[in-house]
């Protein structure tokens, strides 16, 4: 079943990716093909099968809550895109309407 324009736009909105009109059309086709393909899993009866989310068998690994190393503010800001007065600079989060 082919995803509609609206469905693709909804997915893109959730994924925070801006799509052009051409891309909406292109991804509608491609994503539908992939989803149709993976739907063959419906052939498998899994009613009595538990899900596997990890394979190590490990449960929570605890350690003492001690700081063993840390990054300096300077080092972390080194890779920042835009800074102002030792802070990351971003667009305003609140507008007058909020």
């Amino acid at each position, binding site marked *: 079943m082919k995803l509609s324009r609206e469905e*693709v736009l909804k*997915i*893109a909105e*959730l*994924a*925070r*990716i*801006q*799509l052009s009109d051409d891309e909406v059309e292109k*991804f509608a086709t*491609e*994503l539908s*093909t*992939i*989803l149709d*393909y*993976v*739907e*063959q*899993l*419906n052939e*498998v009866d*899994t009613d009595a*099968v*538990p*899900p*596997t*989310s*990890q*394979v*190590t*068998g*490990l449960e929570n*690994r605890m*350690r003492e809550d001690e700081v*063993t190393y840390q*990054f300096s503010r300077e*080092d*972390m800001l*080194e*890779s*920042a*895109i*835009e800074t102002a007065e030792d802070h*990351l600079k*971003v*667009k*305003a*989060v609140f*507008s007058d309407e909020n």
Partner: protein
Amino acid sequence: MLHELRTQLDNKEVSSVELTQQYLQRIKERDEELNAYVLTTEGYALELAKQADAVIAEGEATTFTGIPYALKDVFCVEGIETTACSNILKGYVPPYTATSVERITGGVLLGKTNTDEFTMGASTETSAFGVTKNPYDTTRVAGGSSGGSAAAVAAELAPFAMGTDTGGSIRQPAAFCGVVGLRPTYGRVSRYGVVSMASSLDTIGPITATVHDMALVMKEISGQDDYDATTPDVPVENYVEKLDQPIDGMTIGIPKEYFEVEGLDVDMRKHIEGVIKEIEKLPVTIKEVSLPHTKYAIPTYYTIAPSEVSSNMSRYDGIKYGFRAHGVEDLMDIYKQSRAQGFGDEVKRRIMIGTHALSSGYYDAYYDKAMRVRTLIRQDFIDAYKEVDVLLAPVTPTTAFVVGEKANDPIQMYLEDVFLAPASLAGVPGLSVPCGKLNDLPVGIQIIGPQWSEGILLQLGQAIENIYN
């Protein structure tokens, strides 16, 4: 090879600086054509080599002191640009170093190698730096996603290189380039400091020229790490010593479903059957086994992996580091435009498939369903290992394909993983070893074992290498 380099360095037949210069020179001569490296770290390498020579002079050298190597461009090294071959990470310089890299103590980093963007692909064609060519035929791909590392080792542009394997990204390029590649047991090698793709499937492993080299590197990089909570406290075997043990009495399973796969090239099938006949001459028992859910591995993998991808990729938001779109209106626009301009198409496809598979109303039908089938695929392996010690299988359905041949057909590219995704989902190790050529192109055979069986895989791998050398 690493063993010989160690001896030469320790005997002062060559210095690390000279060895490093030789490799840097080879990269200059050959890599314009191959595009295996996306960054060479010449100054840094020569500085490390100088330090290594001092350590060697003191008589303090250990396994890797002064030995050059390369890293897939998803391994963080403090102060060295790490991009995952994505525009969204260009310019990112990590403030820390991956555990696996720390464990290559004294090694000399030659540079970072090409990969599909965020390791999503099987040909390096989704890399923001362009495709890596196969050293055996430059009209063909080196495979992927660790194609740069495999091509570098094959063309002798590095003695060994590190890669990552989520759904086959070490084993497939190793086979295409005629080198040795190991996907270790999930949790055997720390993932700390390596850019994540799908966290329940990602593994770190070497690409080497010989099985002996593989044993050497694995011995050093394996084991529990406090910075990766998914590394269990399972003792690390001395893989090098293990190579000397006889394989007598080993029981090897041939999974029949792997040979019924549509798309397995007829000549490749014949070649692999010929290899199995050669292995039958060794003091081992060969036995057919069944892994009934094999055909569901690709749809399971391509539901679970994109779901985890969509979660892991959410950190690339144009805020803290990497790329930020210019001329945007507000915060939401920063996210949407930075990701639109920073990610390539394959990454966008996987993020959107995963977002859909995890979204309210679809979670049960896609993600939960795939996790249940994953249980069945894993059980197939557990059942098979009650009968046999290891499994033998093809690595790839064909030899290296021509650049562009599959680039516009996602499903065709996903089917590259048909023999590789099952072991990934089960969390078990797979070793790809060269086993001759087909029409002048390298072929690999895959040995798949139970969890933590790297030692046995290397033992059998050595026996196969002895046949084809």
